[in-house]
C-alpha cells in the first residue's frame, strides 16, 4: 500500500523510520514537511530524505507544498501528522478533506480535526468509501479505538474513565511520591521534556478534555464539543491535598470521565484509591471502559512518544490494508 506522509516532526519521523525498517508492505510515495515536499510513485528513499532534513531543515523540494503532495502524489492512504491546532484544526482539516475528496484513506494523530470536524470528515470518508482512522489521537500507543471497534464490538459502552494526559499524571505522581509543590513538579516535567514551554493545555485539563470529546463522539456519536466538558485542571493542587488523600490509602489523579446516562462529561482531579487500576505512574495513560457484556476493561500504556505513536498509526494503516485489500 502506498503512503503519503504529511508532517515530519517527532511523530512523522517515527512513522517514516518504522515503515522503512519493518517489512510491512507499506511504501512511502509522498512526503511533506512545513517547508517542502517530495514524491515518487516507486517509493521514496526515506533515509536520504531524513538525512537531508537533518542537515538542511527541510526534506524535499521547497517548491512543493503539503497540498501539492496530497493532490498530486500517487498514494492509497494519507498519514496526516502535522502539528495540532486544537482551536481551528487547520491546516490539517483542509489536508484531510483534500485527501478524502480524492478517495484516499486517511490516518491521523491530529486531535484538532477529529475533535472539531469528526462528523463531517467521517461522513465524507463514508461517501467516498474510504477509511478515516485516528487511533493515535487518544492515549498514544494504547489501541483504544481498535478495542472499541473490534474487541468490544456489540457491547454497549456505559461509561469511560481515563488518565489521558501524561504530563498531568507525571506531575501528580511526583507531588505524591516526593512531596514536591506543583511548581517544582512542573519544572521537573519540563526538564524531562514531558511538558511544553506553555503547559496550559495540559495542566488545565484541556488536552484531556479534547481526547474525551473524541472518545465520546466515537463511542456514542453524541456530537459533544469541548464546551460541553466540565473541566478543572491540576494547577491549584497543593502537596498537602495529596498528603491528606494519602492518609486514607488514596491519591489524586486527573480523571476524564464520560457517563451518558448521568449526563456526566468531566475532567477533574479526583480522590482515588491507590490500588485502583487507573492509578498509573509517571507519564503512562490508562482507560477503563464499563460495558454491558464485558463489564470493566482497563487498558494501560504509553500515551506519547515518537515510536509509540507510530505504533498506533501503523496499526491503523495495516487495518486499512487488510480491510480494503484487493481494491487498494
Amino acid at each position, binding site marked *: 500500500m502506498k503512503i503519503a506522509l504529511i508532517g515530519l516532526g517527532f511523530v512523522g519521523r517515527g512513522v517514516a523510520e518504522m515503515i522503512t525498517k519493518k517489512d510491512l508492505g507499506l511504501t512511502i510515495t509522498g512526503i511533506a514537511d512545513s517547508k517542502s515536499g517530495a514524491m515518487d510513485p516507486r517509493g521514496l528513499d526515506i533515509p536520504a530524505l531524513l538525512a537531508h532534513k537533518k542537515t538542511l531543515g527541510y526534506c524535499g523540494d521547497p517548491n512543493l507544498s503539503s497540498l501539492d503532495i496530497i493532490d498530486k502524489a500517487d498514494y492509497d492512504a494519507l498519514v496526516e501528522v502535522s502539528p495540532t491546532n486544537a482551536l481551528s484544526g487547520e491546516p490539517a482539516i483542509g489536508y484531510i478533506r483534500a485527501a478524502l475528496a480524492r478517495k484516499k484513506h486517511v490516518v491521523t494523530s491530529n486531535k484538532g480535526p477529529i475533535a472539531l470536524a469528526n462528523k463531517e470528515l467521517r461522513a465524507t470518508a463514508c461517501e467516498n468509501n474510504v477509511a478515516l482512522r485516528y487511533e493515535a489521537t487518544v492515549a498514544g500507543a494504547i489501541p483504544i479505538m481498535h478495542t472499541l471497534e473490534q474487541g468490544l464490538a456489540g457491547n454497549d459502552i456505559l*461509561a469511560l*474513565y481515563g488518565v489521558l494526559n501524561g504530563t498531568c499524571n507525571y506531575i501528580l505522581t511526583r507531588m505524591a511520591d516526593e512531596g514536591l509543590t506543583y511548581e517544582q513538579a512542573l519544572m521537573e516535567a519540563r526538564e524531562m521534556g514531558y511538558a511544553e514551554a506553555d503547559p496550559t493545555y495540559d495542566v488545565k485539563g484541556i488536552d484531556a478534555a479534547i481526547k474525551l470529546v473524541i472518545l465520546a463522539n466515537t463511542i456514542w456519536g453524541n456530537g459533544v464539543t469541548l464546551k460541553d466538558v466540565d473541566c*478543572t485542571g491540576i494547577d*491549584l*493542587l*497543593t502537596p*498537602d*491535598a495529596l*498528603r*491528606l*488523600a494519602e*492518609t*486514607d490509602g*488514596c491519591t*489524586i489523579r486527573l*480523571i476524564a*470521565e464520560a457517563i451518558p446516562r448521568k449526563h456526566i462529561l468531566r475532567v*477533574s*482531579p*479526583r*480522590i*482515588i484509591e491507590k490500588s*485502583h487500576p*487507573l492509578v498509573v505512574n509517571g507519564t503512562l495513560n490508562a482507560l*477503563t471502559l*464499563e460495558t454491558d457484556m464485558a463489564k*470493566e476493561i482497563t487498558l494501560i500504556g504509553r500515551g506519547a512518544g515518537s515510536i509509540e505513536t507510530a505504533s498506533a498509526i501503523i496499526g491503523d494503516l495495516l487495518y486499512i490494508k487488510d480491510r480494503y485489500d484487493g481494491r487498494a
Partner: protein
Amino acid sequence: MKLEMKDSPGQLVAALKPISDVGGNIIAVIHQREPGPDHGTLEVQIVLELPEGRVEMLVGLLKEQGVYIQRIGEQRLLYKRTVILIGHLMHTDLSDTVDQVDSTGFAEVSELAMSMPAVKERSSSRLTIKSVTKEDMEAALTILRRVSQQKSLLLIEPLEEIA
C-alpha cells in the same frame, strides 16, 4: 439488634465474631446479666454499622452459631464520602462551609483534617461526610459544589466506585 444466646462461656464472643466477619463495626454492646425469660439464656443488644446489603449474611452466620435474633432494630444505612477542599478556607469561613452541609439534617461532616501553611497560602482540608441514603449524599455534595464555587474553593471529589 437484640440477640438471645446460651448463657455459657464463649457464647458472646461467638455471637460477635460474625459481625467482624461480614465487615461490620460494633458501636455498642448492651449486656444485661439478668436471666432471660427462658432459663439459661442471655439477652444482648448490639448497635452496629454494616456495609450495605450484609444484614442477610450476618443473620445467616448468627443462626449457624445457635444465636436467636429476637429483633432487628431500625436499619440506618450509612454512606461515607471523603472530599478535599483547597483554597482560602479560613478566610471563607470554614465553619460556615461545614454548617451548610450539617444544616441539611440528612448529612453531616463527621471528620475534618486540615493543614495550613503560611498565612497567605491556600490551605487544604479533608472532609468526611456521612449520610443515611445515597440521595442524601448526592444532595450534600451538590451543596458543597455550590459553596465551593461561591467561595472559589477547589473541591476534589472521590471517583465513585464503578458500578
